[in-house]
């Protein structure tokens, strides 16, 4: 088995497990980028998504000005292709983390790349909450805070898990591009050490690892979404 692997995947073996170009390193880099940009982008996206629902004309605090500002910011960042965003946002990255390259530097464009996408998904998820429930909560004297977290977020939690899963998976897609600013990761391995060196075995293994990662996230997401949903009889 081991020999068969060495014969058929020589470049994969050559990269090794440890070291700068090793597989362990690129897996960790992908997980690191995905995790932290999901946290930052997620928080940002959640805030913007909630704002889009709350300040909407039919929301609990209708405000055209705030809604339009939030809406335009989200649309603006969504319109920029990620590979361009990497370059566009570089000065801001420099200001924030002190460098424009590397895994940590990639977190800034990743977070900014993913938050508008997530914000839109959160908006749709929260809007799925029946306005009657909001009205009922208002009729018992709920505060705006209660309405946002006690009704909107809580009632939509299963839907939020679902859209978070989708977002997380597309975020993994974005981390592959972060290789362009030296952030490493599985995507970078597939392109730099695989494709560019005509080492198709490396590309194949890197791709498979990404696919496995995506499947695991999808399975966990589906499980949680089912577990958190009590709106159907079961």
């Amino acid at each position, binding site marked *: 088995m081991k020999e068969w692997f060495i014969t058929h995947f020589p470049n994969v073996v050559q990269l090794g497990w440890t070291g700068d170009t090793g597989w362990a390193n690129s897996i960790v880099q992908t997980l690191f980028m995905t995790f932290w940009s999901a946290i930052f982008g997620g928080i940002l996206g959640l805030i913007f998504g909630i704002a889009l629902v709350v300040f909407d004309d039919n929301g609990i605090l209708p405000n055209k000005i705030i809604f339009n500002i939030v809406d335009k910011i989200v649309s603006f960042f969504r319109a920029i292709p990620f590979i361009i965003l990497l370059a566009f946002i570089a000065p801001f990255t420099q200001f924030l983390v002190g460098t424009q390259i590397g895994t940590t530097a990639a977190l800034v464009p990743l977070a900014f790349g993913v938050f508008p996408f997530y914000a839109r998904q959160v908006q749709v998820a929260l809007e799925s909450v*029946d306005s*009657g*429930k909001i*009205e*009922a*909560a*208002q*009729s*018992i*004297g*709920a*505060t705006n805070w*209660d309405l946002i977290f*006690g*009704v909107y977020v*809580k*009632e939509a*939690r*299963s839907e939020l898990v679902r859209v978070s899963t989708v977002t997380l998976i597309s975020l993994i897609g974005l981390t592959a591009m972060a290789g362009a600013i030296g952030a490493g990761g599985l995507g970078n391995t597939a392109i730099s050490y695989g494709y560019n060196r005509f080492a198709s075995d490396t590309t194949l293994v890197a791709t498979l690892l990404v696919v496995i990662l995506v499947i695991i996230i999808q399975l966990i997401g589906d499980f949680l979404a089912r577990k*958190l*949903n*009590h*709106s*159907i*009889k079961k």
Partner: protein
Amino acid sequence: MTENIIELDKVNVKFPLKDKTIHAVKDVSLSIKKGDIFGVVGYSGAGKSTLVRTINLLQKPSSGIVKVLGKEFYKNVDGKEKNISVGDLRKERRNIGMIFQHFNLLNERTVQDNIAFALKHSKLKEKEIINKSIELLDLVGLKEFAKSYPAQLSGGQQQRVAIARALANDPEILISDEATSALDPENTNQILDLLKKINQKLGLTVVLITHEMDAIKRICNNVAIMDSGELIEKGNIMDIFVHSTNPVTRKFIGNSFDAISILNSLNLSKKPDAIVQLTYTSDDIGSPIIVELYKQFGVKANIIYSNIEVLQDKPIGTNLIGIDGNQDSIKKALNYLHESNIKVTEIKEEQ
């Protein structure tokens, strides 16, 4: 006990749309007494829901005065708007429970937590909140479902939970917005009886919005009838039922409408000289009227159709009778019936 708990004065609600304004509620004035069960009836789109939503300001009026529990919630009589503060409104709303057509329970909370959610801002401690939730569930007969989720309950049960939630903060008013419209007849009656029980037990004022006259008949003391945003008639249900001559009201009550269709379906071979509908309460019938009509006026009365309905536990009779005799005697006979406090409606056959 005759204090007005809700006072609406010349309330208007307008919805401005792009090309026109919808005037949903037009100059409606209404006062509801403490401890009353007050019905608001009308067809869909009559504005009854919009009107009642102004009571807890879920719907802001365009003008008028809304006074609830002695406090002015909203006032705009001279173009200057005065609103209760957001914080005060929130507190006052806890004195006004509300239940809805589609129950509007929170699906991701257990039945018990749905009620506890309403108590979040009460002064009760966590343990007391749990106890109170269970107590309320007991009141609506659902104690054993405390840990269930709303989706696991039937519609009637969900509405009971909604009632328990609405009662959580010991409100003085309960608004029921088409709360039985999505339920089957049996559940409808159970919910209505529960509302009546709560009204009697807790002294709660109930405002019942519905398009079903049967619901009003079952539990209301007073009723207001709305049609295209206007309040057509209001008053004691017995009075309205027996004496109202307003065509929309009569259509809602149903009797004269029924009478015509019954008459048409009977296909009488020999038409009587006059057909009248008599409506009366049990207090009104002292003498055997059919016999009296013959004895005093020489007219022969024939009962075509007869029906008794129960309003607030009091029977109301409706008779459709054909009268044969000369015109003069019939006139006198009808006058006699009038004087006996029986409501007489002449039915002209229509095709």
